[in-house]
């Protein structure tokens, strides 16, 4: 991957009937980067994530990942290629245990066959054992190991958000998309989260692309930021550049109710 493309979104556009939710969105990411995406409510941020991860097929445009065109692939195949995500509205497997939530993410990488599992052959039982251990290690890294046996639905909100990240990490991604990871957290938790995001980027050798409304969080954490408004990209640059961009100020101040969100 010397000169190849790591990640590139080319002119992504998403139409829902008459509504253009995202218009001509382009983005290049370099390996190891920490990129932010901001914009008022309904700007189209989640829709960008949905197009990248295959949840939505873009009306037009392309997604290139490691030199491959992955536009329109189903989500599970995109995950298998190394792009993982979390959800804005937490989507855990609430009636499964915390550890099982993480173990699910190992399933797509399983080497043993279904029949080996049904006959309880060593190849499978060993692999299952390994998945169990690795999921525990991951839980330890995100600080949820002591809750491994609890039902995911029983966790506190902040813990659920962490579990979502752990679960995404367990798929072995190279690119991680976080949709409003700090939503609903208090300032203390938000600060810890920023450290945590940096930490996982380093330990797991990740590229991170995140959506967040909390400006302090985004400005402090991200190296580059993109701003969406009504589906259009209105600014891109370092936190300082973006903060002083008149378009951005207008987008946020023009509609005071959004600035609060």
């Amino acid at each position, binding site marked *: 991957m010397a000169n190849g493309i790591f990640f590139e979104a080319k002119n992504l556009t998403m139409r829902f009937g008459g509504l253009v939710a995202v218009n001509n969105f382009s983005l290049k990411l370099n390996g190891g980067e920490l990129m932010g995406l901001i914009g008022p409510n309904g700007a189209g941020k989640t829709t960008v994530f949905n197009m990248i*991860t295959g*949840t939505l097929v873009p009306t037009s445009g392309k997604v290139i990942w490691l030199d491959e065109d992955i536009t329109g692939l*189903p*989500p*599970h195949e995109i*995950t*298998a290629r190394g792009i*993982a*995500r979390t*959800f804005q509205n937490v*989507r*855990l*497997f*609430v*009636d*499964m245990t915390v550890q*099982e939530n993480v*173990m*699910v*993410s*190992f*399933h*797509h*990488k*399983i080497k043993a066959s*279904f029949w080996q*599992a*049904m006959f*309880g052959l060593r190849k*499978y039982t060993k692999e*299952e054992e390994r*998945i169990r251990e690795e999921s525990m290690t991951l839980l330890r890294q995100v600080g949820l190991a002591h809750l491994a046996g609890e039902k995911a639905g029983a966790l506190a909100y902040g813990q659920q958000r962490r579990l979502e990240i752990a*679960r*995404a990490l*367990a*798929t072995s991604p190279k690119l991680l998309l976080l949709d409003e990871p700090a939503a609903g957290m208090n300032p203390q938790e938000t600060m810890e989260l920023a450290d945590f995001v940096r930490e996982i980027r380093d330990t797991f050798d990740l590229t991170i692309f995140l959506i967040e409304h909390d400006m302090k969080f985004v400005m402090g954490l991200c190296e580059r930021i993109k701003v969406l408004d009504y589906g259009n990209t209105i600014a891109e640059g370092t936190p300082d550049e973006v903060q002083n961009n008149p378009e951005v100020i207008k987008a946020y101040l023009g509609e005071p109710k959004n600035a609060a969100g």
Partner: protein
Amino acid sequence: MTKERRNLLLNIASIISVYIILWFFQKYGTEYQIRILNNMAVFITLAVSYNLVNGICGQLHLGPNAFITIGAYTAALLTMSPAEKQMSFIIKPLIWPFSVIQAPFPVSLIAAGIAATIFAFLISFPVFRVRGDYLAIVTLGFGEVIRVLCNALQSVTNGPLGLKGLKPYTTIWWSWSIAIFTVIVIQKLINSSWGRAMKAIRENEIAAQAMGINPFKHLMMAFLISAFFSGVAGGLLAHLITTISPTLFTFFLTFNLLIIIVVGGLGSTTGAVIGAMLFAWGGEALRVVESPMDIGPVHIPGIPGMRMVLFSVILMLVIIFARRGITGRNEFSWDWLFSKLSGK
């Protein structure tokens, strides 16, 4: 002794005790008790495999009666002798090759399972294109289509006349061995990585897919396995009641299975087993409410439909007031039993 070893031994011991109980009934039990035992085993097989799709994968599939029908007809056509078949098919002759082949009972059961699986494979493409209420109605539709075909394709099914005089091959040994086998296989599946993936789809399909799980593949897998065992159970059922016709496997049968798994505890094999046993026993016991009774001089005529009224009321009460059923999604395990025993 490790826990795994202990549990394995206990499992083996309990299977042996099931057989001892069966032997006891075989020797001393009445015909009525044997019938209930057979019904229990068939319903266990059906409910546990039905629960795989409805309870574990969380898809409200309403067409198990189609699989059972296909299994029943396939097995029956294979165990009947060519001469018997020629006698039965009076309206239209049976088509080749069914008209000439005959197979031993075990082979016909496997064929019944395979036939149902092939059918499930074919319909899984439209079925899993949709979800929720639509999936329910589409599967129900396929059940109806099979019933219509059973009536219409007279040169295969003998139409409304059905197939009569099947040999009563289904003994408690067959029915219970298959029930036990089904429970073991399905439990193994549920507790494997594949079973976890299925549960994840039930809990949140979008998230499961984002974690790399292919929903279609896993739903289809559950559907086919469920169909296989339902087909085998259909073969057992045919050789238990010895007469089959299209009216036997209507949506009523599906409804009964739904009651079993809901009352037992949707998503739990233990629940499905308990529900099936209660149903087989309760269903027979409640027959009295539908048959005429003489209490001293008072004659009460039988009331057809009364059992179904009771069952529907039970189903609705459970779903409204005790949604988790008897076991919830919990499973029986020896570890649980011992911790209970030592805890008290």
